[in-house]
């Protein structure tokens, strides 16, 4: 097995990645921590001195804080549930024999290639617009009152837009997993007369556990920091202000760097709580 020599070589080879990421994490983090204890208002002259924990207290006691945490969690979990459930169904469907499988697969993965800004713009204007949007026309065709998506159903709308972007990713990973399913096992079950549902429940689902975990892990990492979709569509109105967006408002709109930095520290804490939580599950599932 690994010799002492290869161990030190391994450490050496790991070093660039670790050092780079450590720098990428620590340098801004240190500065953020520093700013978070200061009254730092660039539009009022910059650094106005130390204020202790004032910014932390102010950020967390603002009426926007807890709702933003809740919104973040709702959006993340909403997208996860939709992409995983539909991803599994879609993966099973795509695994079936059919004509033009390649083309269908191309159609399904296409949204993943679209920039978040573009997809938010397209959804907002061309689909969800209550007057000129396609959905409004569709509703109108059935004689229904058009839905004002981005104000009356704002969080579900954003969940939908983001899910559309991430569904291909989930589907692809789950599809690869399904394709690796031992077809003999399935056939045996089929021969034994196991009904479709129980085959799905006892054979397919357990097999997908690992892939699902991976999907959840990777998507969570990206979803916790979604920004463009909210910036383009609602700008944080109608209860769509996530923690990331709240920090954006403090840092860029109010130009209160101290307060925003304190918010950044909270976001890091939240991310780590989620991370630890995830690692527990993932760790178990990814072992071996």
């Amino acid at each position, binding site marked *: 097995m690994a010799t002492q020599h290869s161990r030190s070589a391994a450490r050496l080879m790991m070093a*660039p990645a670790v050092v*780079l990421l450590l720098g990428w*994490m620590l340098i801004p983090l240190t500065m953020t921590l520093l700013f978070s204890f200061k009254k730092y208002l660039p539009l009022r002259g910059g650094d106005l001195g130390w204020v202790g924990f004032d910014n932390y207290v102010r950020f967390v006691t603002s009426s926007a804080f807890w709702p933003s945490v809740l919104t973040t969690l709702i959006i993340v979990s909403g997208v996860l549930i939709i992409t995983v459930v539909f991803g599994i169904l879609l993966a099973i469907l795509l695994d*079936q024999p059919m004509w033009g499988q390649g083309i269908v697969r191309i159609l399904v993965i296409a949204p993943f290639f679209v920039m978040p800004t573009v997809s938010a713009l397209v959804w907002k204007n061309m689909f969800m617009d209550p007057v000129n949007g396609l959905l409004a026309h569709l509703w109108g065709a059935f004689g229904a009152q058009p839905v004002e998506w981005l104000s009356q159903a704002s969080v579900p709308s954003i969940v939908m837009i983001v899910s559309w972007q991430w569904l291909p990713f989930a589907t692809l990973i789950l599809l690869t997993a399904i394709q690796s399913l031992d077809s003999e096992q399935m056939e045996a079950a089929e021969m034994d007369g196991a009904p479709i549902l129980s085959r799905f429940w006892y054979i397919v689902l357990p097999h997908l556990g690992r892939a699902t975990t991976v999907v959840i892990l990777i998507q969570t990492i990206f979803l916790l920091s979604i920004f463009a979709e909210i910036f383009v569509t609602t700008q944080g109105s109608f209860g769509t202000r996530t923690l990331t967006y709240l920090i954006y408002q403090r*840092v860029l709109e109010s130009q209160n760097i101290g307060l*925003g930095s304190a918010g950044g520290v909270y976001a890091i804490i939240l991310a780590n709580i989620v991370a630890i939580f995830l690692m527990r599950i993932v760790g178990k599932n990814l072992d071996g």
Partner: protein
Amino acid sequence: MSRSVTTQRKIINTTAAWAVGLLIFFPILWTILTSFKTEAQAISDPPVFLFFDWTLENYTEVQERSDYMRFLWNSVIIAGGSTLLGIIVAIPAAWSMAFVPSKRTKDILLWMLSTKMLPAVGVLYPIYLIFINMGLLDSKIGLVVVLMLTNLPIIVWMLYTYFREIPGEILEAARMDGASLKEEILYILTPMAIPGIASTVLLNIILAWNEAFWTLNLTAANAAPLTAFIASYSSPEGLFYAKLSAASTMAIAPILILGWFSQKQLVRGLTFGAVK
């Protein structure tokens, strides 16, 4: 007995899959179609699907207003450069994690992933100040480095999962034959991992291409990629659906085409160790 499927079942599958596929693809299709309409047709009620006067005027107008090729070139350099750099840094790291694992390997891996959870907007101010001091604002090299760093954890992890599937015995054998570490990586490991590396490269090009926070906030004129290009069309005065569609199509077309051509490669490799 191989899985025999009745034609009837195949027809049902095909219909269902195509319906779902078209539904998912529809927003993109609609955007592309709208880009060939006039502004008035773009909002006509009821909407027109195919039978309208196809026109290229939106594309001409967008091109007149912004130098598309320059934005495109910047996107190519930034996405390509950051991916290349990331791969170079990540291969040795992933190698050592996969073949010389220690107790802390998994912790390091998970820690790397957790750095991706830092909210970019929270560290924008510090990064901006650093960039000013280093003269990196509005430079492609600055963005290449930043995007490399943001995606490095994903690259390392993906590569790690591929490398781990390569049987260690092959390497042992090579080592017995006196291959050096460098030779081992270069001539044995890398060729075996080509599909995995290809897929990692593709995924990261997509992620870097679509990154819209750093690319917008750290650029002005020289290094601005397609994400900045689209920001000048997002909500102009008056009717704009057709022009927006044209600009959107131009922004996503290159990566869409690349994605389609390489989808087999991407699909084969996109497992993140999900399949054992």
